[in-house]
């Protein structure tokens, strides 16, 4: 692989990760926390209505997890393409 091909392949995989992670980002905040909130509020977990929980707590936990998953994925990807040096 030339360095140019390597860079293109790396970038493609990176974009794929971004699409997946950002879809989750969108679904938990704008989906569960806003658009489908009333629907999810029929489900109760402890004293929380689920939609309300996502909007005020859950989405934030997912955000944190998403970034750490991204860090892991990218560190692996860097290694795979030899960009980790």
């Amino acid at each position, binding site marked *: 692989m030339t360095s140019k091909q390597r860079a293109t392949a790396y970038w493609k995989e990176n974009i794929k990760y971004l699409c997946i992670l950002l879809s989750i980002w969108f679904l938990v905040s704008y989906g569960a926390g806003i658009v489908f909130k009333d629907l999810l509020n029929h489900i109760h977990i402890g004293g929380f209505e689920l939609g309300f929980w996502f909007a005020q707590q859950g989405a934030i936990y997912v955000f944190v997890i998403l970034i750490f998953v991204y*860090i892991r994925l990218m560190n692996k990807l860097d290694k795979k393409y030899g960009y980790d040096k």
Partner: protein
Amino acid sequence: MSVQIWTYVLVAVSFAIYIGIAIWSRAGSTKEFYVAGGGVSPLANGMATAADWMSAASFISMAGIISFMGYDGAVYLMGWTGGYVLLALLLAPYLRKFGKFTVPDFIGDRYYSATARTVAVLCALLVSFTYVAGQMRGVGVVFSRFLEVDINTGVVIGMVIVLFYAVLGGMKGITYTQVAQYCVLIFAFMVPAIFISIQMTGNPVPQLGMGDTLADGSGTYLLDKLNGLSEELGFAKYTDGTKSMIDVFAITLALMVGTAGLPHVIVRFFTVPKVKDARKSAGLALLFIAILYTTAPAVSAFARTNLIETVSDREYTEMPEWFTNWEATGLLTFTDKNADGRIQYLADEQANELQIDNDIMVLANPEIARLPNWVVALVAAGGLAAALSTAAGLLLVISTSVAHDLIKKQIKPDMSDKTELWIARGSAALAVIVAGYFGINPPGFVAAVVALAFGLAAASFFPAIILGIFYKRMNKEGAVSGMIVGILFMLFYMMKFKFAMFGGGGEEDWWFGISPEGFGMVAMIVNFIVALVVNSFTPEPPAEVQEIVENIRIPGGAGDAVSH
């Protein structure tokens, strides 16, 4: 010891630490002054970013605002955290790889144009100044309430402290003081929250306590109880809120994108050694921020329940001491409209007898819950740490914009590093004085504009940076016209609906039912569209610029940050 003495002690000790750190970490070169030499560890940078980010508004006002907004408070909770996902995934690694000092640096180089750089500098100054004035005011407010000095004296004391470590230490000094300030502010926020959670639900984790049953043995869930109380008094159900769905959506998005576009946050990612560290510190920053942001909604629910139970339909003469203390500040007012000697706290404006300022909820919460004096004092020290750390970060952006982006890059490119350093210090000092002036004489619009700084950042920087990284063919004509149209469009909407210019208008006139706070979403979309359309009619960027883009997309080779 009294609250007063405790406050003096805690504030004095924390200030001494900040000053000590500033002296220990003075900056010796412009690189140290602008980006702390590029050698900050991801952990330290994560804490510093968290403190930089969490302002007086996050610490003092947010939980209070949420307790009055109920569900709608989610716009702040998600809006001010979700932006970090965008930062970590879409901006931080690439900007770090690019490896310059400022956001205008990136815009100027990527769009090979002095105009683009100047537009970016103006946007950065506009965003940062509106934001910093609010912080200085926050410092003044905390001083006046807890140390009983005049609010203006409070602002001046705050100015002197910030001046000292921002001017002396630059980014290096600021980074390490922010690490200390993060520790102070998170401790100060968590201690009362944990105490109150135990008191009300028996659960020591506030995040869980919020969804737990009350400790009074009734077996009722706290949130059910709060919903019941709210409805009884005519308010909306706490877990429902009153904003329209489209507005909640728009505000959340504007705040997220605005967060990712704020220059004082972005610049923090220039301070770490490698691309890998930039990603990691974005993750750590959000983790540190999330500790406060998941606790805040719990504090809101506790405080709201506590407040209603303490005051609603009780005899005025039986009110506890904190009630009269806060009445004296004018932030809490009671008018006995029906002259029955009892406090009617109701949603109906005509019959409601109690007015409560948002800020009281966090500041008075420890007193309402009858926590020990040192906890009350701790909150004052935490509020100051939050306000000072954000103010310092913003002042640095202002001084860098002036010294580096304007004078060095555009007016006098041949000056020495030493001269530039002195100019940077001078402009930091000047910026502190200007900010202090606005803190003492707040123009009526400051409070309104601080929230809108996000809309401005969303409407200007975010699209230009994203397109600059992810769309190689993006050219200067497109980016510049997008930024200009975006920020003007945002300013227009803000002036029309916030300051009644251009014919003004009320809530019923909002476009698509979107408030000025949420309009950043629309202005950002307009920026994207204008940029792409103009781009398609104008020539593609030169080959060397396209090469820059290809180069920032891969992490290798960023280790040589020292060689700039």
